[in-house]
């Protein structure tokens, strides 16, 4: 009942689709979502595959709770080999796609090959069609979704914009206009396959095991846990709340991570966002409704999320909320990852101001700022260079020390010099610099742990990574802070057996090690787990973290301790003993 037992495999070369059985043993070992998608990719991809070739695969993976009324279970894992980094890549997109796919009868979709001409995939229960997308190619994601809705009616769509079509390593996939599978160039995987969109409608349902027992249990959990004071920040404010927290802690990225405090923060914080808030929006089965639908006289977006504010506002020296909202809307339409886009624009600003290369844009330049999403997505003007992200720009023009990426994925919205554990989390995240594998600031920068030491950070990051790995495999949304005990309680209602918190922790560790194994096979090791030199060498300029940097020796200490706790060797490679222990 938790799984349909069916995977849809689509071959874009032959234009055919077939249904196969879900690998049940893998579903037991990896649950679904992140873990199960990575397992399929690990088994099916050859090492060294070009992520933009027809040999890469795109996997859409649901979880055992998808389509049920389990709170916060409505997200979809989207995975492939990353064109940006060459590592394993899994993203998470909200909205309503995952439940529709489950109701259509599928646990997952695996897309292989490359279509000769632009197509979009349409799934309606047993009916699976590849339709021409030639008329859609060249459109933004918003027009694409509208056009498809006009011909297909009530479907949920994943779409790419021009950024994905033009193979930007910073291209994302969007759904319902304003939700994304964001990072690592996932949108360009679709673009490289000539796949413009995937639309689904499912008219089936799921068997509920004793619906009364399940509903009673879930309603109780929803009231006592999901909607308790610890989680309702998402409803009351959404992620913009974090702007104040980061500013207070001195970890708000400012002017390409030159500083951790931004003088204009009050114009872009959650109170500023609430000033233009028109409605809240929720994903399937979510009572937290973190989505903020905002509208000014000139523009609108569902957002802006904290990451967008941090990387595109303070990081670009921009304190104009309306301009940020418009930048956000443009990125969502062109399908640009706002973290990577904001970071690349900020890098261009610093290179220009330092006289290293003139991209014609300086910090705070709103007019040029708003031109960037279009120029980058169409590879026009300065966008031709900036389209490929900070690592590529640095390789061509210099400024490597302050190209703010790890493994070529741009660093998200928390300054590591004010949160050393966050730095370790960036260095050891599976897909490049990411805040969604481990997120130390609540315990460190916002909490009681000393942020400026390596002490205890490795242990914390390992625990957080394993927790999130199983959380995103079971598929619970990040924003519900729930224990593994609670995860076990909810899963046990649906999977036909009692699962324990300890089993879940083991699954989390297995998933995290499998993603590391994938990367090892691609040639990644310790040398790739470091931060840009700015973090080790440059002092922050003002506010609560004035004068702070992260000494390289402190980072080395954390990294070595991290490998030890993980059971990996000094080069960051998984030992045979650990592989055996986890069944890898």
């Amino acid at each position, binding site marked *: 009942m938790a799984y349909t037992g069916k995977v849809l495999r689509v071959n874009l070369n032959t234009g055919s689709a077939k249904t196969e059985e879900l690998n049940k043993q893998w579903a037991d070992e990896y649950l679904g979502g992140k873990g199960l998608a990575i397992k399929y990719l690990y088994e099916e991809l050859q090492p060294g595959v070009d992520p933009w070739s027809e040999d890469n695969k795109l996997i859409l993976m649901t979880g055992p709770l998808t389509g049920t009324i389990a709170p916060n279970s409505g997200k979809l894992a989207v995975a492939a080999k990353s064109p940006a980094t060459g590592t394993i890549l899994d993203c998470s997109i909200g909205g309503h796609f995952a439940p529709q796919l489950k109701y259509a009868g599928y646990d997952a979709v695996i897309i292989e090959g490359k279509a000769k001409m632009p197509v979009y995939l349409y799934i309606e229960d047993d009916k699976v069609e590849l339709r021409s997308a030639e008329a859609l190619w060249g459109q933004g994601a918003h027009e694409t979704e509208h056009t498809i809705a006009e011909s297909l009616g009530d479907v949920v769509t994943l779409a790419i914009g021009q950024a994905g079509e033009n193979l930007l390593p910073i291209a994302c996939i969007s759904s319902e206009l304003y939700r994304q599978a964001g990072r690592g160039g996932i949108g360009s995987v679709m673009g490289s396959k000539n796949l413009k969109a995937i639309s689904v409608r499912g008219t089936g349902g799921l068997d509920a095991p004793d619906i009364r027992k399940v509903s009673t249990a879930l309603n109780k959990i929803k009231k006592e846990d999901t909607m308790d*004071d*610890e989680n309702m*920040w998402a409803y009351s404010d959404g992620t913009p*709340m*974090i702007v*104040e927290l980061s500013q*207070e802690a001195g970890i708000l990225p400012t002017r390409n991570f030159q500083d951790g405090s931004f003088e204009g923060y009050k114009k872009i914080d959650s109170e500023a966002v609430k000033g233009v808030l028109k409605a809240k929006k929720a994903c399937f089965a979510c009572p937290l409704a973190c989505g903020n639908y905002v509208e000014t006289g000139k523009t609108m977006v569902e957002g802006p999320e904290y990451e967008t504010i941090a990387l595109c506002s303070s990081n670009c020296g921009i304190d104009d909320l309306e301009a940020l909202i418009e930048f956000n809307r443009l990125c969502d339409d062109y399908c640009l990852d706002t973290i990577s886009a904001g970071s690349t624009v900020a890098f261009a600003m610093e290179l220009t101001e330092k006289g290293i290369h003139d991209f014609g844009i300086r910090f705070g330049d709103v007019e040029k700022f708003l031109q960037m999403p279009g120029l980058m997505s169409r590879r026009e003007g300065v966008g031709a260079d900036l389209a490929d992200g900070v690592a590529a720009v640095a390789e061509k023009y210099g400024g490597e020390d302050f190209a703010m990426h790890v493994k070529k994925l741009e660093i998200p*919205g928390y300054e590591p010099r004010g949160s050393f554990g966050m730095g370790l989390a960036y260095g050891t995240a599976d897909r490049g610099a990411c805040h969604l594998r481990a997120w130390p600031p609540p315990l460190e920068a*916002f909490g009681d742990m000393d942020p400026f030491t390596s002490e205890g950070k490795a242990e914390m990051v390992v625990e957080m990574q394993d927790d999130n790995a199983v959380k995103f495999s079971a598929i619970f949304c990040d924003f519900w*802070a729930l224990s593994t005990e609670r995860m076990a309680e909810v899963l046990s209602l649906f999977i036909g057996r009692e699962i324990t918190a300890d089993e879940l922790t083991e699954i989390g560790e297995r998933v995290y090690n499998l993603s590391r194994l994938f990367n090892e096979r691609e040639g990644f090791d310790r040398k790739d787990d470091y931060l840009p030199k700015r973090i080790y060498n440059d002092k922050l300029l003002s506010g609560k973290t004035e004068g702070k940097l992260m000494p390289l020796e402190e980072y080395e200490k954390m990294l070595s301790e991290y490998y030890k706790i993980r059971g990996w060797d000094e080069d960051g490679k998984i030992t045979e003993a650990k592989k055996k222990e986890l069944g890898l």
Partner: protein
Amino acid sequence: MRITIKLRGPLSKYGPGEEKFEYNINSSSCTIEELLNMLNVPTSPVLFVTVDGNKVKMDTELRGGEIVTVYPKVAGG
């Protein structure tokens, strides 16, 4: 003594409704912890508290006239 309080986000429900309000304490001094007790704000959903923009510990004493901001826990990022 009189202070200004901001209960941010979901914590505003422990106040009069508005996030920001004036509050009278019938004492010449009061710690942050005592203040939260008076307002019936449970400690588990509190992330941290600032006094006049500076993060403080729970045993910090108030004297009157300060702006006390109480921040809620957040998950994810």
